[in-house]
């Protein structure tokens, strides 16, 4: 049993405690909440369109708060409270620069590109696969992400890269891809064996001057922007915007690009691939004829 006086004391004490606690907590929250425009970031497209889905920014905002704000921040600038501990750093949506696109370098990605990135996540980073969210939720998030930058209201997405049919995987194709790997100086960042340890690797930074590392082909089974041969093709034909990885769309022809894809697959030594099988067989018999990739190698590489 409790007396009325005691109950009143408890009640008043609770109010006082909550008031004391809530004040600083709310103040803290306001400090970290950048500005009132947060609720209505840069007005742009309030919708996304992915296949038959229409995403809505208003719904995406709630989801962003639940899932994304810790890393990407309340202002969408990649400065969430966890960002200081994360490497590589979270995406800054206010710049509207995105790594994984099907569109030319420098252009905005399609809604589908953003949807795919959310779904797929980014391997070897803190960005997980958001496949457990419903398709509608992912579409809503895309719509909200697009509200962070005025670019979305001023520009249209770039034209989607047309990926031609893949050429046959042959030893000639792989060898030619190896020549391109040398000629295009991919090894300078990715290293002669694709370990991400090329001579330039340690100097690389992203568009926000944060250090970044080139992809290490030898340990990964997936790429940041996908896992199929088409994805690899797309990565170096569109470039990885915001990083030193350029677009090679204007540098090489589609058939050459496929040859490069086939060679890159051979660098994934932990992943069983038909390119790898073919290449290992070739190296077993012709390995001594191969010139090493690197600064001392002739452009021909073989």
């Amino acid at each position, binding site marked *: 049993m409790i007396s009325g006086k005691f109950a009143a004391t408890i009640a008043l004490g609770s109010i006082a405690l909550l008031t004391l606690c809530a004040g600083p*907590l709310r103040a*803290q929250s306001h400090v970290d909440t950048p500005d009132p425009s947060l609720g209505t970031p840069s007005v742009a497209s309030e919708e996304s369109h992915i296949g038959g889905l229409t995403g809505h920014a208003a719904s995406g905002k709630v989801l962003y708060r639940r*899932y994304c*704000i810790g890393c990407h921040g309340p202002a969408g600038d990649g400065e969430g409270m*966890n960002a200081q501990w994360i490497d590589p750093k979270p995406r800054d949506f206010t710049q509207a620069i995105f790594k994984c696109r099907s569109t030319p370098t420098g252009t905005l990605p399609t809604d589908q590109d953003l949807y795919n990135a959310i779904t797929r996540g980014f391997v070897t980073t*803190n960005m997980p696969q958001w*496949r457990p969210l419903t398709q509608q939720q992912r579409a809503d998030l895309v719509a909200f992400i697009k509200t962070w930058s005025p670019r979305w209201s001023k520009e249209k997405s770039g034209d989607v890269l047309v990926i031609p049919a893949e050429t046959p995987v042959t030893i000639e194709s792989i060898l030619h891809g190896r020549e391109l790997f040398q000629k295009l100086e991919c090894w300078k960042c990715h290293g002669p064996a694709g370990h991400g340890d090329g001579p330039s690797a340690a100097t690389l930074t992203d568009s926000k001057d944060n250090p970044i590392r080139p992809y290490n082909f030898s340990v*990964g*089974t997936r790429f940041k922007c996908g896992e199929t041969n088409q994805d690899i093709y797309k990565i170096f034909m569109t470039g990885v915007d915001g990083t030193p990885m350029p677009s090679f769309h204007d540098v090489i022809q589609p058939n050459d690009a496929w040859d490069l894809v086939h060679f890159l697959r051979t660098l994934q030594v932990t992943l069983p691939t038909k390119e790898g099988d073919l290449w290992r067989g070739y190296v077993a018999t012709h390995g001594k004829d191969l010139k090493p990739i690197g600064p001392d190698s002739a452009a021909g590489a073989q």
Partner: protein
Amino acid sequence: MFVFRPESSDQKKKSRWSGLLVFGVVALAILFADAKPTQALPNRKVMAIPAFARKYGLPCSACHTAWPELNNFGQVFRDNGYQLMNDRDSPIWQNPSYFPITFRITPNWHRESADHQVIDSSPGCFNTPCFSVAGKLNQSGFDLSGMDLWSAGTLYKNISFVLLPSSDSTAVWHFEAAWVRFDNLKGSPWLNVRFGRFELDNLISEKRFLFLSNNGGLYQIYHFNVPGSSNNFGYGDNQIGVELAGHSENSYTRYSVAVLSSNEGGVNFTTDVVPGAPPSNRSYDVNLAFSQAFDAKSLGFERIGAFAYIGQRPTFFETADGGTVPLVGLGNKPFYRVGVAADLYIHNLELLPLFMHGHDNAFLGTSTSSQGLLPAGAQAPSFNGGFLEAHYYLNPQNVILGRFEKINVGQQAFSSNPGNFGNVTAYSVGYRWYPIMFSRAGIALDGEYSRTKSIGIIPESGDGTGAPPLFPTDGVWSSSIFFGIDFDF
């Protein structure tokens, strides 16, 4: 269990209103304290298992609807063996000083009340003849919950573990969970093997739910046994054994098959985790669970599932010292629990319905040794019951809770028992506020009111004297008012 003081009749009404006043004022205070616009995007989030948050840097709300309840993303993370599957899950990728441990405890104020309790006619039988009467007991005050000291994570890529020492509020410890799981065998999410003491694969988890009070902090149906039964099984209790489980890539489809010792998760070959529990037998139970989720477009995420637990318990013991020392459980008799459950969303409203049917063998249900004959009127008891729980998420930081439970004994252990003997009706309402959004720890203010009516039996909450009422037709009302500060670091 709490010790209560009997209350004079003229104080009952005053006391009831005093308790309600406290609860109401506290609830209002919580509401007003958080009266900020929901349109804002405060960047503070709470972690449910901050050990994981520290590892992955995700906000608590990524894995939890409201911690500790999992959402589907959290379910996938758990199903993957506490891995995000981004090739950075093995501990080798963590700072060597990282240690995956978290603790949780809830300082609280609560009031417990139970009527129809058997008490002395006069406190202390002072200067009066002493006889038993039915009375109401209540007690209130500041208190502590038990404490969880939870370590969980990955030992290596695709090898996960949990070690959960848990204490009651007097710091008496036991191992609530301890297991190792080999995940994604043969590279497939459909093959995962877990070994140790773990929670059954419940679609609606009692270990990760949002109620904390004595009466509300458990699902009645998960612990119910028909009065008179010697069966101590509780579907919500962790069991010990081995489990084969699997799931689709997004965990929309999930299954599990577990083989468990027939001992209610007891260790050291005993039939329960509590000290002094009798010895267990040499048999095994099986639990089967399956669920399927659907993408309901704008409504959200919907999951339905079914489960079955087929077990057995001893009805007598091999003995020593003239039958006084039980050695090994013998004379196993079967029981089963089957049911369906769902986790349904209608935008911000989450509904958790569950239905369960339970059946015990007549020997088990009447606590009769199977060496002999059943007593007259003995029959295999059964029950049906379930609950509907609702959560309304005002936003990730505020959730309103409600639950209604009902259990009816379909067939009594003895035909002479009143038809409603053992029936349970319970309801709970609550509110949880997660005032800070911080990526390294969590805190929640929890207010609840829960009430349970159990006919002729001891309330599952433990409120009261721990003895059944005087008559099997007496409906014992047991209620809890709870206000706690639930924190997790």
